[in-house]
């Protein structure tokens, strides 16, 4: 069928099952938005800043498991996507970013709104393309979606010059992809499965350390079966939350810098660490020489480059977590509960997390614990970055994969709210909560407009301490209380701001009002609700292991005298 490149792009996306795009047009993007005009089988959600578009595509992808798609025009539109692309790259999230580009004849001449976006995104994409011939376009879109969604997922960018969008093509759908330098399916080495099974059988103090790979591969059921059969307890990374139901007695919560004390004690004392779809990030390991130093390590991961990258392992199994676990489950025998289990359970009760009982103060962790209790594991909870994120990781219990969305690797403030929009669009029947601070929310709050426009009933839990809290915490603990550049007490009235956008706004100043406010928000079904929780300003996240240190330096509570 004869059509122009822009229509071929949109038709290719439809043919590959894409239903929604998050994006903003611009000069050289007009042909592509023209091709969207009047279509019923695919729609554009018009965001207000391209960074919001990229985070929304990311949130959509994390919540649904499908590839999230975002559009931006050339130059500044494209560069505004970069933070969201880098966020997706660090967390291995499948995303397709399509950018318009100046015409091929104007390329390389510093033309108006020209930016070398394939060059700029080289280090933060799994792959990218500059399409110079319209006849390549259907194949490139097929390849881009395939690369983004297979193997270790990641963002792929496709840059399309204006004259390519306008050029005529006889469109044929591309159904098969063949890239000779890319074969994501790995044959699993059975001898490694045997080795891993033997290590598990011989271990006295094993612990599982589960990451985002378990979520990406859909291996939660297999992980639960392994844990149930062997009574091996499971600590998760920030991105691994939901890999095992956190109410399960085998769940240890998050490990690492702000992990639970019991997860960190278990990993520190274990004699076998089973890393599943995780990459030994520095926020997990702290000081490498002291990390799990008594343990043999099994590392199961789809990406061979993660093996021995920072921690040398005793047994590496390369492959998709789900397939590896299915094979491993055929070899692993049941093990009873042991003294090791008792020891960990003792740590679990000794270091149990508790909201401080301080009725005078409105404490962020108590607000989060209330959200967790009232949503009963049925909501998608998205966080921003900073104290709000770490408190949420500790106090919000996740029971199902893809119901916990957080920017881990890049730690992108401003991620939460637009990502929640993507999650709500992808899962219209699931309640979506975003927990954010006043700092991060103000970085992307312009997306209130599309959220209102599309009647998205997102609950914005704004933990408003009027300060950049995580930086303030580090300054208090490690920089002699020199609070430089963290006071953001000059701020809008967030209740009125929400109302100005047409959302519901509320303000909560007392702990006694928390439950009623959340209950009221949960009744709103046709627009976003923002609750401005005026939380205590000097609350710190504990436990904490200072950067680059070991569990011996763990602070379970605020140090005396500080």
């Amino acid at each position, binding site marked *: 069928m004869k059509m122009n490149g822009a229509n071929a792009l949109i038709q290719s996306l439809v043919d590959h099952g894409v239903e929604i795009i998050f994006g903003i047009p611009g000069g050289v993007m007009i042909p592509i938005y023209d091709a969207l005009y009047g279509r019923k089988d695919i729609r554009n959600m018009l965001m207000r800043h391209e960074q919001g578009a990229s985070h929304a595509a990311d949130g959509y992808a994390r919540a649904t498991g499908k590839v999230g798609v975002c559009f931006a025009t050339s130059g500044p539109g494209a560069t505004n996507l970069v933070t969201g692309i880098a966020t997706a790259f660090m967390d291995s999230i499948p995303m397709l970013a399509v950018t318009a580009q100046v015409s091929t004849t104007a390329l390389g001449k510093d033309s108006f709104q020209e930016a070398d976006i394939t*060059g700029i995104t*080289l*280090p933060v994409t799994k*792959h990218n393309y500059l399409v110079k011939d319209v006849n390549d376009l259907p194949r490139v879109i097929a390849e881009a979606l395939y*690369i983004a969604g297979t193997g270790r997922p990641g963002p792929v960018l496709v840059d399309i010059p204006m004259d390519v969008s306008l050029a005529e093509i006889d469109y044929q759908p591309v159904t098969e992809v063949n*890239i000779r*330098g*890319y074969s994501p399916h790995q044959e699993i080495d059975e001898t490694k499965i045997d080795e891993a099974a033997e290590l598990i059988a011989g271990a006295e103090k094993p612990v599982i350390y589960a990451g985002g790979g378990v979520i990406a591969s859909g291996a939660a059921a297999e992980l639960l079966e392994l844990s149930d059969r062997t009574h091996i307890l499971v600590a998760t990374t920030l991105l691994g939350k939901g890999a095992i139901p956190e109410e399960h007695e085998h769940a240890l919560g998050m490990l690492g810098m702000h992990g639970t004390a019991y997860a960190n004690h278990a990993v520190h004392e274990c004699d076998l660490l089973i890393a599943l779809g995780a990459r030994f990030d520095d926020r997990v390991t702290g000081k490498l020489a002291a990390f799990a130093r008594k343990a043999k390590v099994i590392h199961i991961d789809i990406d*061979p*480059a993660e093996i021995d990258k920072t921690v040398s392992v005793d047994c590496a199994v390369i492959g998709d977590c789900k397939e590896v676990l299915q094979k491993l489950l055929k070899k692993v025998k049941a093990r009873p509960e042991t003294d090791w289990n008792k020891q960990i359970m003792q740590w679990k009760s000794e270091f149990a997390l508790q909201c401080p009982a301080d009725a005078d103060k409105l404490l962020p962790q108590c607000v989060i614990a209330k959200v967790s209790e009232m949503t009963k594991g049925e909501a998608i909870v998205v966080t921003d970055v900073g104290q709000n994120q770490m408190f949420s990781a500790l106090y919000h219990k996740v029971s199902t994969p893809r119901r916990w969305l957080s920017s881990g690797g890049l730690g992108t403030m401003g991620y939460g709210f637009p990502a929640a929009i993507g999650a709500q669009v992808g899962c219209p029947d699931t309640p979506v909560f975003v927990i954010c601070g006043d700092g991060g929310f103000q970085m992307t709050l312009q997306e209130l407009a599309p959220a209102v426009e599309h009647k998205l009933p997102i609950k914005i839990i704004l933990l408003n301490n009027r300060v950049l809290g995580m930086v303030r915490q580090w300054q208090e603990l490690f920089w002699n209380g020199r609070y430089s550049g963290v006071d953001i007490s000059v701020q809008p009235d967030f209740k009125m701001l929400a109302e100005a956008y047409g959302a519901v706004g509320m303000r909560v100043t007392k702990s006694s009002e928390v439950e009623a406010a959340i209950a009221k928000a949960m009744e709103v079904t046709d627009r976003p609700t923002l609750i401005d929780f005026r939380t205590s300003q000097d609350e710190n996240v504990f436990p904490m292991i200072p950067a680059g240190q070991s569990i011996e330096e763990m602070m379970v509570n605020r140090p005396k005298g500080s």
Partner: protein
Amino acid sequence: MKRPMQHTITVLVENRPGVLARVSGLFARRGFNIESLAVSITDDPTVSRMTIVVTGDDSTLDQINKQTWKLIDVIKVVDYSEIPIVERELALIKVTAGVEQRAPIMQIVDIFQGKIIDISDTSFTIEVTGGIDKVDAMENLLKPYGIMEVVRTGKIAMARGSHTAMS
């Protein structure tokens, strides 16, 4: 085991614009040191071949191989550290050569089986081919006469025997 040393790897890539930037960009941002890099087309016009000499310990080399593999435009990475190879580099050396120096320089060139490919009243331009050590040795011997300019291609390498990078 940590031992910084030189490794030779061959990378077969799609012959497309921007692929060299993908490979060199990866090396730069991950902190891998490139000693030399030679690129050219192969007998298959859709494939280019890079011969890269890198320094690093075993774990760095392991990361270099694996991270390079991950690039979509990379078809194959062959590590030549552990197998017998033939390797060559070509150098052009311009050296000061007045009348009195000509005979001794020609002797050195002869011993190294090099060629004098250009001559002027004050200089020779010499072509020499060989392993890196041989080219280094020749350069050192010519130094006393006054080297004006040196250009080296960087090493290229192939496995010995019938084995090929593609097989």
